[in-house]
């Protein structure tokens, strides 16, 4: 399994290059969009950079798909609103520090707002593991 700190170091470099951030302002539990001010274009640039760096593919909706897979037969969302079980699984990806953001009524479209630096690192590790790396 990939080493979290090594992945974090590379993700941090991508954040600096793609989103014009200073290394000092980046922290694991900061959300990309709200805390770090990454806009949608920067987010895509960041994802492209991370995809290339690790030779992985992160499609739009990957986080929701992974969470749904983990739940198996239990629904992740109903009419785009994330279920209680779905919120619990998302917490594993996003980290405890963002628990307050995982409120009832959260929709699938709001998931990108939850992305933290940590959850991006976890996503990378998950994709690498899927490729047996």
């Amino acid at each position, binding site marked *: 399994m990939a080493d979290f700190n090594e992945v974090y170091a590379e993700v941090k470099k991508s954040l600096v290059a*793609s989103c014009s951030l200073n290394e000092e302002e980046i922290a694991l539990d900061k959300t990309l969009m709200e805390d770090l001010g990454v806009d949608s*274009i*920067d987010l*895509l*640039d960041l994802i*492209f*950079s991370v995809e*290339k760096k690790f030779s992985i593919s992160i499609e739009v909706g990957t986080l929701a798909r992974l969470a749904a897979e983990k739940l198996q037969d239990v629904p992740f969302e109903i009419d785009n609103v994330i279920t209680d079980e779905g919120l619990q699984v998302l917490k594993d990806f996003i980290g405890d520090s963002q628990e307050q953001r995982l409120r009832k009524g959260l929709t699938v479209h709001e998931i990108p707002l939850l992305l933290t630096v940590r959850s991006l690192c976890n996503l990378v590790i998950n994709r690498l593991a899927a490729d047996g790396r």
Partner: protein
Amino acid sequence: MDLKLRNKVVIITGSTGAIGLEICKGFLHEGSMVVPFYRPPLSKLDGLFAWGKENDIEKSRIYPVCVELDSTASLQQGVDEVYSKFNGIDVLVNNAGWTVEKPFLAITDEEWDELIRINLTAVARLSRLVIKIMMERKKGSIINISSTVAQMFGRGVSVYAAAKAAVNRLTEVLALEMGKKGIRVNTVCPGVIHTPMSGPLVDRLSKHIFERTPMQRIGETAEVVPAVLFLASEAMASFITGQHLFVNGGVNLGL
């Protein structure tokens, strides 16, 4: 004047058409690596290779890639091939386009779909693939060859006019989105230019066109090229994005 386009990697669609061929020559003249996207047979590029030989252009600076513009898979394959060969793309010229002259009420669904696919959808899809690569270097220039009919005239070419108007707006929105990534997106909007495609129009309406055009003549393909080179050049146009450069003898002034 050095446009600093030497060794820049330039993809040009519609490279076997009259204007496309001249654009290829223009970039080769500036020392760029020219990647004509073409539909088979390759012999359609014989004229370009012959011109290159006559003008001492190294053959290796022309790297044709066979692409079907209406297939995203083919576009992806073409862009991947260019990326693996040159490790980057500096300029994209979306030049491919065509029209049929028919009243709107006589246009079939099939003609509508095909004209939109080539004149608009292919521009969007290829731009999306190339922008992803340009974002790595935080620079690049996209030039969409639009038309004066995007803004005016266009009787008998309704689909073409609608598609080109959409290309103009797409250009503006892409410029808005990609500006912070150092990618410039502009159009060149030719008026009536002497080409095989405009032949019937010119034959029929040249008197009317002359009357409406301050410069009182039809344009030549070579006159479109400097506008494209200018917008492609970081040395010349580094702060120009989201703009439409009309090459039409002033016909849009509305005489």
